[in-house]
């Protein structure tokens, strides 16, 4: 036996090492216990060095930009960005509340509920397993982070905390093949399970008879006990019939892979899924340009909003064309059947064909001598 072992010494050692690791692996899987000590050692050895590298990179690049190019703008920008993220989160919360219920009810909800308590963190490193989508963030148990907490950005969900160390924490991203998230559609309140493991993200467990349309938003449903209900997840990009279940592809709004700064939800607050569009557009909405100033203030054209406005404008235009002054003595009747020119400046927004009444019907036949109503200038609607 001894001779056999010494002859196949290499193979024996290989078997011992592999079988030893297999047994250890089986023990971890069976007992669902993780060997914390080894992980703590490894994380403690690696993350400080990664932190130093990140700090060197950040400071060397930042130094040039801060002091030679942009002075302190970079730091201010970072602070403003953090503030902006926080405000956007609050904004999403408030808009959700206001759009889901009556104003008074939303205010009551607002008074009784507080928004999710979060803490900002920065991503400092990836996982060593390429196929496992996980990152390390620079906040740990000393910042109040615990295992299982949700990680989000104002744009959408990012992942959940799977391991916590004193100064860092590991976050499993929603794009990891093993990660599932309970989601709910905005319009039909269709429940499903988000799975990003097989290529593009898909919402599974949706019956064929359920109605889901492209462009529709999905939100967290809160059923997974990780993400509070009402956080935006993404929009539907395609819906196709599958084998028994619908094949719904989703475009994540949070872009968890490339995110650099995240918010860890310390105390989650469930929100209602909004009825209308709730997520802010990236584009800035600006007020419409002011009307062009002219000599006579009364000449300013109001934008047609109602059918009555459009008819009034049309009659005014016809009157101008035929030199008719409404209400003037011996002015006669204008020909209301005459068609106004196609592009005259008097018509700022031509009405659609379907809504424009035909001239024959639109022109009212007034009895002679009857007071002709002067078309009143419509008041501009509130923007």
């Amino acid at each position: 036996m001894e001779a056999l072992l010494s002859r196949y010494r290499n193979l024996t050692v290989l078997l011992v090492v592999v079988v030893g690791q297999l047994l250890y692996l089986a023990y971890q899987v069976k007992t669902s216990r993780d060997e914390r000590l080894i992980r703590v050692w490894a994380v403690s050895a690696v993350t400080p060095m990664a932190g130093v590298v990140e700090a060197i990179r950040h400071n060397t690049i930042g130094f040039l930009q801060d002091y030679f190019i942009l002075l302190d703008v970079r730091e201010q920008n970072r602070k403003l960005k953090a503030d902006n993220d926080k405000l956007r989160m609050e904004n999403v919360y408030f808009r959700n509340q206001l759009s889901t219920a009556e104003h008074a009810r939303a205010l009551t909800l607002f008074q009784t509920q507080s928004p999710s308590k979060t803490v900002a963190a920065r991503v400092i490193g990836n996982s060593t397993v390429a196929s496992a989508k996980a990152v390390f963030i620079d906040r740990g148990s000393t910042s109040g982070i615990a295992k299982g907490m949700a990680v989000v950005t104002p744009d959408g969900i990012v992942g959940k905390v799977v391991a916590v160390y004193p100064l860092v924490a590991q976050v499993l991203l929603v794009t990891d093949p093993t990660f599932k998230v309970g989601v709910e559609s905005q319009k039909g309140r269709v429940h499903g399970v988000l799975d990003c493991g097989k290529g593009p993200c898909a919402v599974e467990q949706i019956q064929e008879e359920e109605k889901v349309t492209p462009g529709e938003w999905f939100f967290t449903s809160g059923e997974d006990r990780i993400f509070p209900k009402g956080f935006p997840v993404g929009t539907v990009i395609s819906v196709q019939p599958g084998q028994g279940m619908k094949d719904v592809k989703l475009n994540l709004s949070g872009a968890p892979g490339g995110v650099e700064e995240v918010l860890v939800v310390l105390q989650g607050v469930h929100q209602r899924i909004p009825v209308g569009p709730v997520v802010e557009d990236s584009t800035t909405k600006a007020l419409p340009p002011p009307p062009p100033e002219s000599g006579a203030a009364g000449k300013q054209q109001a934008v047609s909003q109602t059918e009555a406005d459009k008819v009034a404008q049309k009659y005014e235009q016809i009157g101008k064309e035929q030199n008719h002054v409404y209400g003037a003595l011996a002015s006669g009747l204008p020909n209301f059947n005459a068609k106004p020119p196609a592009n005259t400046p008097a018509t700022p927004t031509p009405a659609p064909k379907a809504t424009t009444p035909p001239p024959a019907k639109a022109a009212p036949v007034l009895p002679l001598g009857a007071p002709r109503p002067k078309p009143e200038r419509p008041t501009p609607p509130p923007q």
Partner: protein
Amino acid sequence: MIGASEHIRPRRQRASWFGRFQVAALVLLTLIAIISKFYLPRLIPSTVWLELPLLLTVYFGLKRPSPILALLFGAFVGIAEDSLAPENLPIGMYGITKTLVGYFAATVSVKFNVENSGIRLVLCFFFYIFHAFFYWLMRRALLGQLVPLDPRETLIHAAFNAAVALPLFMILDRMKLSGELTA
């Protein structure tokens, strides 16, 4: 006689010190390789395919005549990588894979002239595919995790890693890391 033993002792001490230094250098290199995998994709996202710990294991296996040391080194690197993986991946997955890679690399080095660049290229290409496939298989078979494996992507990544391995091995050759350890 006394003079001879005194002549020998400093050489042994020097070799021992040098060996320890080389071990420290090897541990440092391993740490750098793991940190590169941990941190580099944050800086340059397109380097996610780079498997420096695997290349280091292959190099160590090719340069070592002893498969036992090579497989132990592979196990060490693999377990270190496992420690930084998410907790749904228990420790030992990369450990077993890299143990086998180290063992096979050392076994191959006995039969082939591994100083040849072409053979190194082919071996690195092969070991990357073996590593990726075996890890995927273990994840599927032992943990029941249905993770997709894209063959085309794996082949491309294997080619990239093999291309990186050539200059990397040359640099390591210049350091004579493994040779000094053997001595």
